[in-house]
């Protein structure tokens, strides 16, 4: 039965976080397993790790009362158990089922957080059926007592789990030699020594079990017996282990257990001979610093990370934001006081405010740093999907990853995962050609997909680049014309045409495949990226490939904004999306096809009037001199005409709530610190909105 009724929501959140981690890990490991299978390799440790993932998830979900998840994990665990025990042979069909299990588990976890778990009952039942169909045992070796043949003592074998027993038999029946490696380490620093020993042994063969045992110096030392299955001879093993203070005992001779008894008897004698070289050898171990240092090392490694709900960090960031605002008002009071000739105190207050500003900046940076996670986490997900899709499509793709340690706000990383995945799917689906086609046009059989990210000022740039066929501008033009998305393409530049793929309902796929063309278009990709104040841009060369560039702010929590004034209202616009601001005379404005433009350094810059975008009635005439705030990325720019620029300020963007979700061009509201609340413009959204309106 479950305990879900009596446990706190916090603990459930712990469950979801951990369960998601397990499923993520399962996916990565399954991809590895599939890769190895393809290359005809196998790795019992990997298989066991996958099994353990499913096993943990089953136990956890059961404890938390999510029976459907527990059942699905249980079925997967069964299949994995049969696999690791050698009762089922790995095949494409089995791999496919395992991948589908992982996918189902991910779906169930999402449903769990949304409270819709029960709706997936049928999928779980179907999953059970699919798994049971797989469980046809292959013939295994008849039971034989490997322990007797090896002459292993009960103490050694008594603590072996069923799986470890199986691995022992497996190693034995494959003709590998089984060794018992005995080692003794200081109690307070055993972990480093044991890890070093295990590393060496893993290179020599398979470590079947690690049994801690009681040594001769109970108070200060801990001993281990490791069971190793290996093709190496005793002599080769001794050479490998010559720097380690261990004893190597081969098994297989029936008198082995007697030997132990004998050595017990002669212990006193041995102690004298063996002990001193053993101690000196332990000192030689690379990872064996002084005891005091060890203590701190091991204590730290027990709890070096804290899992924090992102909501708590948001709250903290909000408070920091409020503090920043409070500081702004103190500063402005100081300035006003100075103007009013309270000079002495005004200067002191001004100094104190400056000091406060510095400390606040530190605090802000500290909180911001906590929110940052490396883009590498995203890469991991993507590379899994890439491997999966390329396998399904029979395309050879080499993935090159750059800048995986570039850091971004966790919230941004999460919100761009889907758009990024879509871009990558498109690149594999439509970009990179089949191996045959690639060879035919004189390219490498392997397609290359480059994912790179780097920081550029206050932005992080993520690029997805493929060396596939590129995007055919002509095809896009025809498609847009035939769909009635544009009336005439004659006056459109290549870039304008390329931008059409971001229009709703556009898809260039010649045939709908499993992967792309699911109805989610590039317009959704652009909107999702715009939702986190990001921009996306494409470059392409027919026959050579395409590059998608996503430009993102490093964080959304606190941004520097340009405060603008237009038609009696004040707005903020993120400084990261502003390219420049210029002074505009009415006489500079020309009209092209009824739309206002200005010439800016030999280029035509389309203009947008905010009062028109938001349907605001202006009282009186606009001022003779106005400003143009140029926003945009790369070649796509737009000039927003405003009456005045009021300055720069740090603002905290607060969402408007779901009622205003469909509102285009506004990314939220912000407090100016003087009781005034203003709207924050979303430059990316405004650009795509204008494109949509002006596309025909």
């Amino acid at each position, binding site marked *: 039965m479950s305990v879900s009724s009596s446990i706190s929501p916090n603990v459930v959140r712990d469950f979801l976080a951990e369960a998601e981690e397990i499923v993520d890990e399962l996916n990565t490991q399954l991809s590895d397993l599939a890769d190895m299978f393809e290359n005809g390799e196998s790795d019992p440790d990997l298989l066991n790790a996958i099994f353990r993932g499913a096993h943990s998830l089953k136990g956890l979900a059961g404890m938390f009362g999510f029976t459907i998840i527990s059942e699905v994990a249980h079925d997967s665990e069964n299949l994995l158990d049969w696999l690791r025990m050698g009762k089922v042979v790995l095949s494409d069909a089995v791999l496919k089922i395992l991948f589908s299990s992982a996918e189902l588990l991910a779906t169930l976890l999402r449903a769990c957080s949304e409270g819709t778990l029960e709706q997936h009952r049928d999928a779980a039942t179907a999953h059970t059926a699919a798994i049971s169909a797989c469980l046809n045992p292959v013939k295994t070796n008849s039971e034989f007592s490997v322990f007797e043949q090896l002459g292993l003592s009960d103490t050694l074998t008594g603590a072996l*789990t069923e799986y470890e027993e199986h691995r022992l038999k497996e190693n034995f029946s494959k003709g590998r030699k089984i060794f018992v490696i005995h080692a003794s380490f200081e109690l307070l620093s055993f972990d480093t020594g044991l890890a070093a020993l295990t590393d060496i042994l893993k290179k020599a063969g398979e470590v079947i079990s690690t049994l*801690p045992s009681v040594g001769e110096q109970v108070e200060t030392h801990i001993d281990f017996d490791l069971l190793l299955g290996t093709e190496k001879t005793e002599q080769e093993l001794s050479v490998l282990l010559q720097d380690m203070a261990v004893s190597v005992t081969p098994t297989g001779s029936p008198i082995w257990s007697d030997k132990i008894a004998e050595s017990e008897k002669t212990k006193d004698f041995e102690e004298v001979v063996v002990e001193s070289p053993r101690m000196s050898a332990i000192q030689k171990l690379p990872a064996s610093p002084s005891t005091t240092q060890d203590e701190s090392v091991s204590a730290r490694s027990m709890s070096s990370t804290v899992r924090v709900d992102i909501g708590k960090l948001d709250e903290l960031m909000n408070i920091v934001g409020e503090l920043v605002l409070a500081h702004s008002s103190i500063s402005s009071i100081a300035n006003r006081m100075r103007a009013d000739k309270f000079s002495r105190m005004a200067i002191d207050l001004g100094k104190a405010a400056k000091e406060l500003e510095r400390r606040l900046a530190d605090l802000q940076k500290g909180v911001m740093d906590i929110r940052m996670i490396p883009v590498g986490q995203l890469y991991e997900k993507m590379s899994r999907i890439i491997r999966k899709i390329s396998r399904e499509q029979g395309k050879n793709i080499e993935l090159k990853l750059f800048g995986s340690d570039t850091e971004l706000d966790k919230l941004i990383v999460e919100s761009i995962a889907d758009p990024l995945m879509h871009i990558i799917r498109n690149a594999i689906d439509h970009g990179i050609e089949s191996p045959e086609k690639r060879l035919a046009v004189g390219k490498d059989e392997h397609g290359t997909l480059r994912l790179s990210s780097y920081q550029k000022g206050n932005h992080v740039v993520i690029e997805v680049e493929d060396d596939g066929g590129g995007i055919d501008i002509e095809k896009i033009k025809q498609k847009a014309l035939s769909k009635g998305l544009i009336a005439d393409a004659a006056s459109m530049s290549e870039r304008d045409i390329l931008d059409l793929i971001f229009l709703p309902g556009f898809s260039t796929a010649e045939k709908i495949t499993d992967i792309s063309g699911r109805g989610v278009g590039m317009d959704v990709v652009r909107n999702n990226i715009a939702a986190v104040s990001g921009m996306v841009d494409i470059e392409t060369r027919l026959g050579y490939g395409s590059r998608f560039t996503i430009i993102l702010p490093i964080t959304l929590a606190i941004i520097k904004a340009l405060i603008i004034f237009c038609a009696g209202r004040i707005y903020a616009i993120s400084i990261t999306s502003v390219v420049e601001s210029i002074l505009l005379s009415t006489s500079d404005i020309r009209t092209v096809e009824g739309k206002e433009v200005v010439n800016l350094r030999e280029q035509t810059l389309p203009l947008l009037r905010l009062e028109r975008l938001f349907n605001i009635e202006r009282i009186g005439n606009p001022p003779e001199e106005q400003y143009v705030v140029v926003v945009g990325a790369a070649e796509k720019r737009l000039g927003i005409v405003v009456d005045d620029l009021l300055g720069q300020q740090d603002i905290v963007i607060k969402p408007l709530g779901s009622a205003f979700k469909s509102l285009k061009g506004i990314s939220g509201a912000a407090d100016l610190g003087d009781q005034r609340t203003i709207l924050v413009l979303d430059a990316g959204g405004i650009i795509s909105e204008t494109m949509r309106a002006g596309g025909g």
Partner: protein
Amino acid sequence: MKLFTILIVDDSTAMRSLLVSTLETLGDIRVVQAANGFDALRVLPREQVDLILTDINMPDINGLELLSFVRNNQVYKELPVIVISTEGSHKDIEKGLSLGANEYLVKPFQPEKLLELVKRFL
């Protein structure tokens, strides 16, 4: 006064927090956590542990190996150990009992069941 100290050994953070929040209802006890058999071996000499609750299936040093160590060690051999495992691993539980586990719990279990078992050792 020294508090009754329980060492929880489980590689699942969520499982550990669940155990902790259940055990905390007992009042005057102290809970020490270890994420695996390794950590448990590190914790043992540093903390005066009065009871161990351990999962079986963990990487590297599993719960059975930990139990075997405890029972064979002069210092810790009297230490009560409750083994926790997922249903279906009956063989492992049998092994646990034969190695000298005082009690075992099969996941999923009711919190009351855990409290009842733990109270026997307080």
